[in-house]
């Protein structure tokens, strides 16, 4: 018997337009992701890099960076640690692939259920985020494939800019996803926000 579809932590959120009406709204969506935390063992830098390259086509990104390879992305989160993410398909396989790729080289913890990703995009995304995000997201210092962890509205958040729209993928602890989204919708309300 195959596992049922997991319940998304934000399943109950009201979709549609929130906040101000008129004009082009900010867009919020909840991309289904598999997320795996990879924690390198001591002295395995080059072996882990080789494994990540061969299994996922990614050169392990350095601090503050994210990199995308074949079907998966890696985001640096801690010294010697990355989050590997991939769109969730019908079969959850990322953790198993990582376990295999990094066997003996790194510890692997599946966080697919433990972390929830919220994508925010639109020209006003930076202004909305500035209501709680202490990072400087100005294009001159932050941009596509940059990532940083920072508390927003008292909730730890991994901010990953994926394109120049700009679009930010915001990954938070799943048990705090709801209050985080509540904050985000309030911060985005002056611009109007469309929840997909």
């Amino acid at each position, binding site marked *: 018997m195959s596992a049922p579809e997991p319940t998304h932590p934000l399943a109950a959120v009201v979709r549609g337009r929130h906040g101000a009406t008129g004009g082009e709204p900010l867009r919020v969506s909840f991309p289904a992701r598999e997320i795996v935390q990879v924690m390198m063992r001591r002295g395995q830098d080059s072996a882990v890099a080789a494994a990540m390259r061969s299994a996922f086509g990614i050169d392990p990104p350095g*601090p*503050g960076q994210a990199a995308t390879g074949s079907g998966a992305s890696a985001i640096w*989160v*801690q*010294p010697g640690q990355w989050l590997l993410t991939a769109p969730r398909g019908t079969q959850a396989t990322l953790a198993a692939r990582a376990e295999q790729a990094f066997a003996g080289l790194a510890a692997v913890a599946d966080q697919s259920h433990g972390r929830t990703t919220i994508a925010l995009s639109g020209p006003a995304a930076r202004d909305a985020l500035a209501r709680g995000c*202490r*990072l400087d997201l100005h294009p001159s210092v932050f941009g596509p494939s940059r990532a*940083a*962890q*920072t*508390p927003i509205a008292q909730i*730890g958040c991994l901010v990953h800019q994926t394109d120049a729209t700009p679009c930010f993928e915001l990954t938070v602890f799943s048990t705090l996803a709801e209050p985080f989204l509540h904050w985000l919708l309030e911060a985005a309300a002056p611009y109007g926000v469309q929840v997909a």
Partner: protein
Amino acid sequence: MLRIPCPHCGARDEVEFTYRGDATVARPAPDAGTDAFHDYLYLRRNPRGWQVEWWQHHGGCRAFLKVLRHTVTHEVRGVVTATGALEAPQA
């Protein structure tokens, strides 16, 4: 407000960090005795001036860092990772 330059993440607001005590004291050897552990856990130089301190970048990369900071001016002059060496200047 302190801005602490994390060696991994760059300068970040103090709210991302947690102070975790004087970094010049080291946990004694297991057989060092009660007095050694007492001094490690309780006695403090508590300088009015430069101090090397433990801070965790808990809101960022979670690394424990050694931070050289002035306790009067709050100037942060050096930050290294946990195994790095950092000395307080005299005076």
